């Protein structure tokens, strides 16, 4: 009996020990609760601790890379900038893939996952909205189509394959050596093999963040609330203020008729059910990552020819304004082989630079901001399930079935339905589909390959004929002193209807074509001796095609106005002048409005505190400096002036701001332009008088807004006006791509605002998370370039190359963009030989 008891106890002991040990093994392999797989993740040899040794700067060494045809040299400058010296294109792009993966694999994997709807697989249910949206929109479907259209022999196909091979070499090495970035270990997964489709998805993701917009839905809600006429008064197609288009005409009209506007009495409105449906869809969009929908405006670029420069040769500058993140969206690189030379910034995941120069030409991009997203109200009926009515007949919707893998949960099924216009985004209350130009195949890589090999404007322009999306203003300068600007891309034209509103899906408002390439905005060696773009409307009022409205979504033009001011008066311009302009914090709108405000205030009886504030404004030079008191007063005043003017209308019309905060009155392009224009030219405009309120003019509203400004700033920053520095209200923050707060930078008090040339883009005007993501200046006087981006070449937060450019960027300084040869002579360089 005792023997049996002992045996039972012994067996029980073994079972208990086995259960505990197995449990630990399970936790080691799969993780437990919030903890990642602890075994592979935290072991001191190959786990997350490896991040410390991986962060050490590379040493000169030989590395074995599969698939190289001949040895490749990679020279790293002391600051991390890499230079590839290869013997042929195949090896050059393989090395580029290897370098991107070596320093940015995490970022690349997150980007492809976002675009392919696979974020939930690694982070769980919180990414379901994003995954569903991306699968609906179909970046991967477009990428697959683009890949299918690249026939054998297509240069871009060869480049993508070579690049993918380099990425996969690095992944294989990292897996073998335990060197995968820490995030893979913490999230407990291995990166999948890199494919050309992944690169094309990342290209699509950039397109999406630059030109997928929802403003037709905003327009629909505004029309519902305040009526068509009032909406179009506040958010007109053409800007009411004076702007500086870069292409002033004369314009040609080669065939396609301009869009017909239905301002003749046909009221375009939506029902209460449709309004609810749109509000639901807008909420869905708000839950997406901030880069999923285009918001705000992006970028400056310009060029001046030798007439205006000190050395008689061209100068060119470009600074794309994108989300400022760590790691940055950019990876700086130069590459050389007997057929290819380029130097500039690339996007990890894409095998080319997007901005930079070769031996003969330089280029940079800004966003065109034309309307590229159209929404269609599909006609459906219960008697015709899964069908839509188009061109007089019922057609079946195409259905694509997806299964979204979810970490720690069950796979989520998703059916995406497509009409002839595009994917259906909602069927609640109405059936809305979206026709987005970014969903159409665009041979961007082929175009960039041609640009990289172009040596003059003819080659440059010829390449851009095939650039479809995202539409971009490509600035150009060359070693012969020529300058130019082309706004390449698709400009959709519909048969009839107001494109800025949801259109009828029954066929009469379909896209029938685009603006022909010869008619898109462009200039070459203009008599002004300079070209410039800053997301302003590129053309004047008599341009014969519809390209977008003030809300969908050209910039207010103040950066462009400031650039125009400087360049039009510029003589003997130098690189330093270009630097100063890129870093300018002059608020152009303030230069126009503050004198008016000061003049109004002079006629009023002010309190001592108000007098001090008014004096600060009257002696201010419109610089949004971090220590400027007047900058705080100006910005607070302007936002309050907007509120005091428009808010009564919004309240009276019950604009659904609570349900859709993007409709709130704020410093957006259209309202800024309205108020600027009325203040300067029409101070008795009826809009100043609140509905049902006493008669008011601009002066009275300005006076009220100023009084409220002083009160607000007293409450926020104390009673002493001298303490109201702009840096106490305004900061910049560079968020981590991984959304891990401790891996970001800031918030740090900062100069600039939404429309200074050195833009500090933000939703609320106070915390900027976007702005100049790269500053680049090409000096064709000596063929040398300089550049800087707020970040560093490595994504490893412990690496000295993680954020080593941030301070220089913050100070407005630049680094020389060396050639490979110059880099190999620079002190502290390191050379890898890949073979």
């Amino acid at each position: 009996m005792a023997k049996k008891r002992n045996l039972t106890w012994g067996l029980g002991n073994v079972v208990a020990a086995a259960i505990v040990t197995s449990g630990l093994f399970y936790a080691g392999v799969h993780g437990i609760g919030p903890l990642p797989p602890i075994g592979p993740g935290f072991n001191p040899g190959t786990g997350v601790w490896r991040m410390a040794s991986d962060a050490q700067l590379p040493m000169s060494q030989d590395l074995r890379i599969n698939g190289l045809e001949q040895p490749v040299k990679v020279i790293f400058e002391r600051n991390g900038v890499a230079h590839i010296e290869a013997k042929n294109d195949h090896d050059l792009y393989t090395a580029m893939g290897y370098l991107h993966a070596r320093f940015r694999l995490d970022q690349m994997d997150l980007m492809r996952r976002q675009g392919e709807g696979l974020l939930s697989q690694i982070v769980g249910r919180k990414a379901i909205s994003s995954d569903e949206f991306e699968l609906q929109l179909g970046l991967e479907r477009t990428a697959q189509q683009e890949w299918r259209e690249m026939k054998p022999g297509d240069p871009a196909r060869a480049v993508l394959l070579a690049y993918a091979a380099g990425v996969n070499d690095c992944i294989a090495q990292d897996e073998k050596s335990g060197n995968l970035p820490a995030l893979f270990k913490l999230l407990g997964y291995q990166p999948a093999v890199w494919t050309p489709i992944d690169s094309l998805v990342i290209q699509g993701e950039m397109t999406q963040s630059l030109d997928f917009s929802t403003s037709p839905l905003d327009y629909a809600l505004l029309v519902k609330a305040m009526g068509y006429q009032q909406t179009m008064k506040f958010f007109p197609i053409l800007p009411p203020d004076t702007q500086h288009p870069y292409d002033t005409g004369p314009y040609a009209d080669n065939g396609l008729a301009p869009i017909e506007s239905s301002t003749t009495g046909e009221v375009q409105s939506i029902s209460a059910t449709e309004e609810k449906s749109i509000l639901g869809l807008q909420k869905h969009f708000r839950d997406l990552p901030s880069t999923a929908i285009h918001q705000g405006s992006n970028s400056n670029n310009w060029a001046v020819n030798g007439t205006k420069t000190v050395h008689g040769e061209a100068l060119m500058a470009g600074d794309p304004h994108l989300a400022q993140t760590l790691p940055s969206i950019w990876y700086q690189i130069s590459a050389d082989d007997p057929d290819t030379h380029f130097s500039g910034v690339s996007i990890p995941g894409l095998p080319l630079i997007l901005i930079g120069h070769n031996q003969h030409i330089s280029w940079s991009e800004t966003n065109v901001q034309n309307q590229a997203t159209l929404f269609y109200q599909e006609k459906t009926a219960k008697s015709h399930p899964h069908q839509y009515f188009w061109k007089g007949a019922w057609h079946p919707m195409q259905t694509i079935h997806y299964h979204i893998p979810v970490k720690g949960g069950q796979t989520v099924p998703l059916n995406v339905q497509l009409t002839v216009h595009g994917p259906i985004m909602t069927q609640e209350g109405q059936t809305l589909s979206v026709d987005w130009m970014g969903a159409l195949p665009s041979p961007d890589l082929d175009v960039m390959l041609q640009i990289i090999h172009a040596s003059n404007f003819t080659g440059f322009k010829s390449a851009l004929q095939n650039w479809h999306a995202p539409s971009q203003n490509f600035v150009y300068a060359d070693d012969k002193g020529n300058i130019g600007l082309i706004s390449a891309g698709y400009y959709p034209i519909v048969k009839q209807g107001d494109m800025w509103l949801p259109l009828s899906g029954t066929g009469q408002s379909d896209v029938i074509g685009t603006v022909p390439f010869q008619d898109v905005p462009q200039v070459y060696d203009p008599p002004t001796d300079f070209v410039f773009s800053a997301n302003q409307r590129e053309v004047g009022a008599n341009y014969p095609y519809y390209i977008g409205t003030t809300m969908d979504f050209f910039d207010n033009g103040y950066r462009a106005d400031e650039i125009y001011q400087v360049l039009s008066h510029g003589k003997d311009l130098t690189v330093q002048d270009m630097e100063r302009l890129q870093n300018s914090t002059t608020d152009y709108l303030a230069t126009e409005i503050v004198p008016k405000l000061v003049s109004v205030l002079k006629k009023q009886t002010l309190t001592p505190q108000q007098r001090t504030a008014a004096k600060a404004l009257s002696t201010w030079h419109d610089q949004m400096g971090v220590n400027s008191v007047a900058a705080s007063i100006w910005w607070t005043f302007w936002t309050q002036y907007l509120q005091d003017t428009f808010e009564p209308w919004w309240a009276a019309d019950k604009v659904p701001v609570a349900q859709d905060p993007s409709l709130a009155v704020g410093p957006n392009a259209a309202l800024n332009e309205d108020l600027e224009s009325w203040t300067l030219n029409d101070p008795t405009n009826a809009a100043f008088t609140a509905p049902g309120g006493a008669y008011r003019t601009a002066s009275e509203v300005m006076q009220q807004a100023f009084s409220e400004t002083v009160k607000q700033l007293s409450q926020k920053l104390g009673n002493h006006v001298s303490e109201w520095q702009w840096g106490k209200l305004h900061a910049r923050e560079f968020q981590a791509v991984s959304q891990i707060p401790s891996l970001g930078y800031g918030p740090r008090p900062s100069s600039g605002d939404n429309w200074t040339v050195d833009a500090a883009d933000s939703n609320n005007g106070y915390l900027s998370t976007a702005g100049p993501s790269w500053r680049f200046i090409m000096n064709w006087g000596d063929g040398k370039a300089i550049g800087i981006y707020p970040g560093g070449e490595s994504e490893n937060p412990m690496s000295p190359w993680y954020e080593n450019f941030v301070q220089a960027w913050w100070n407005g300084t630049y680094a020389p963009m060396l050639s490979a040869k110059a880099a190999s002579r620079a002190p502290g360089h390191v050379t890898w030989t890949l073979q």
Partner: protein
Amino acid sequence: MFRIRMLTGLLILVASVAAIWLTNNVGDWWATLIVGGVIGLLWTGAGVKTVIAVLAGGLGWILPLLWQAQSLPMGRASSVLAGMMGFGVGDGWIVWVLTAVFGILLSISATWLGSAIARLVTKPATT
């Protein structure tokens, strides 16, 4: 006899730490279970066995990190990792503790399993 036993125990501890260190270096973290199991199977005497298992697991997982800390900023690494895991950046100690505790738990649970098996197989039945 006691001294020989102590010396043997020390040798087993050193060998265990070395084995765990080396296997972790190539990513075989689960080898700690084998080392713990072997300790449990071979050593008699619950008290010393437990001490050896705890030390082997703890030192086997922490010593390599301390060794690396001579030339690498492992303290900063733990802070960064703590931040990445959602703790505060000042909570780097959590990552050290997590690493050491996991090593100890692996070792000691396997030692328990090894001893339980050894006892089942070798212990004579009492009547």
